[in-house]
């Protein structure tokens, strides 16, 4: 076994509405979806974004397209109209999520 960043196995996109961010995580290969489902959990994602103090993290699964959708509540410092962040939408958060370490068999990932 070895550890790789989620970035090796999946791509992701962030969207925002108000003070809520959603981040999709999409497996490049359908056969990796089970592994992502097991390791990219609500708890781990909440931990990964703990510094932004999400009040709630919800995961939705879309196995037919090998994707999951995370909804993170109250992580945008009020959202597009209120945040002092240059990235007031949180557009960059998807790539932060892709740094999450994933344990994979030696023949998976690059």
């Amino acid at each position: 076994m070895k550890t790789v960043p989620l970035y090796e196995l999946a791509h992701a996109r962030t969207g925002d509405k108000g003070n809520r961010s959603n981040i999709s995580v999409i497996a490049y290969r359908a056969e990796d979806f089970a592994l992502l489902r097991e390791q990219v959990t609500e708890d781990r994602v909440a931990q990964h974004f703990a510094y932004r103090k999400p009040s709630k993290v919800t995961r939705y699964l879309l196995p037919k397209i090998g994707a999951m959708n995370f909804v993170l509540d109250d992580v945008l410092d009020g959202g597009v109209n209120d945040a002092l962040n240059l990235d007031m939408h949180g557009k960059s958060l998807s790539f932060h999520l892709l740094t999450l370490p994933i344990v994979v068999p030696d023949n998976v990932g690059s």
Partner: protein
Amino acid sequence: MEDIAVGAGAGFSGDRVDAAGPVVQTLIERGGPAAIIFEMLAERTLAFAQIEKQRDPSKGYEPLLDMELRPILADCVRHGIPIIGNFGQANPRGAALHIERMARELGLKALRIGVVEGDDLSGAEGEAIVRKYIAKEYARKPFASANVYQGAMEIARALKEGAQVVVTGRVADPSLTVGPCVAHYGWSATDWDALAGATMAGHLLECGAQVTGGYFADPGKKDVPDVANVGYPITEMSADGSCIVTKAARTGGLVDTRTVKEQVLYEVHDPAAYLTPDVVADISEAEIAQVGPDRVRLSGVRGHPRPATLKANVFFEGGWFSDGEISYAGPNAEARARLAARIIRERMGHQMKLRVDLIGVTSILADDSGHYFEAIPAGNSTDVRLRVAGTHEDPAVCDRLMREVTALWTAGPAGGGGARVTKRQRLSTTSCFIPRELVPARLSFVEHE
């Protein structure tokens, strides 16, 4: 019945003005029924348009309207391709009159322009409705404006009654696409699966290039051909509610299962319940398949009855915001930038809420509380830009922050250069849900003299 193709000419206010041309050309070459949409209203665009309209009642619609439509208007009219856009923003009637003027200047016959209103709740009557449905914590805040998301049905009616252009204020983004599909296929307001399919087709179109390789390219990992000339999307809608996503011919970009999967989930929360005024769309069992080069089919979208309420975005005056930046380079640059940050904190931190970033160390990942920033140990970056941002009800305090940043030139650490400052008015926002019968959409046509 032939399938209808719907293209997207813009995906936000301020989008590229040369994007729609290739989309219209592709629709013309394809032949058959077609429409083009312009989605130009992000959450806060409309609130700022409301302020603009208060300053000048003839304004408050999309500032780029002329540049977006002038290149394509004659072709669309000649080939019977209706244009549907929320470029009306806070002043749909003003936008309609502008388009009428443009048509005259282009030598076109008087156009039939439909105007969909009823979204604007900024007047006293609207405010009274909004106040009943917003959370108590907002009761004392100074109300600025409110708009409710209208749906597709009045757009469809305008098209059935011969509109060549439909101008709207706030409508749900996907409804711009659902409207022409309803008008074409004659779907009823309760054909939930078909409406849901068209809603997701519209969802894929509404951000323009985001489904054709924009907001996607990651060199070496997700490469996009000729991304500088990324083409804007077109969906070919089937009567059963499935669609094929493609893009304008002879353009850059790509449409593949990855771009479509990313965009289908963009700004979606529960995939089984994507709420719009027209339908509750369910993509939890949807399928996405490549069916040709730059052609992807989305199928299996299901629909459930539409909500009994409409969502309204409500804006309050939110004080002022200012920020400033200054750079340091060379030996010990990061330490000098950190010293500059301490100077600003000491002089301004007690007066206003401040955020500090060191661009080159961290610029966007941190949160406003500063905990993330503080956890990064001091390093040795040799080219770093300090950014401070603050907010206050009193614009004079925001002015003072800007003066403190520019004073770093002479009174701050050695070698500071490139100071820049900005200030703007802020709006704070909330949303609420209003029974739809209280806020009906209204369709009218521009009268000709």
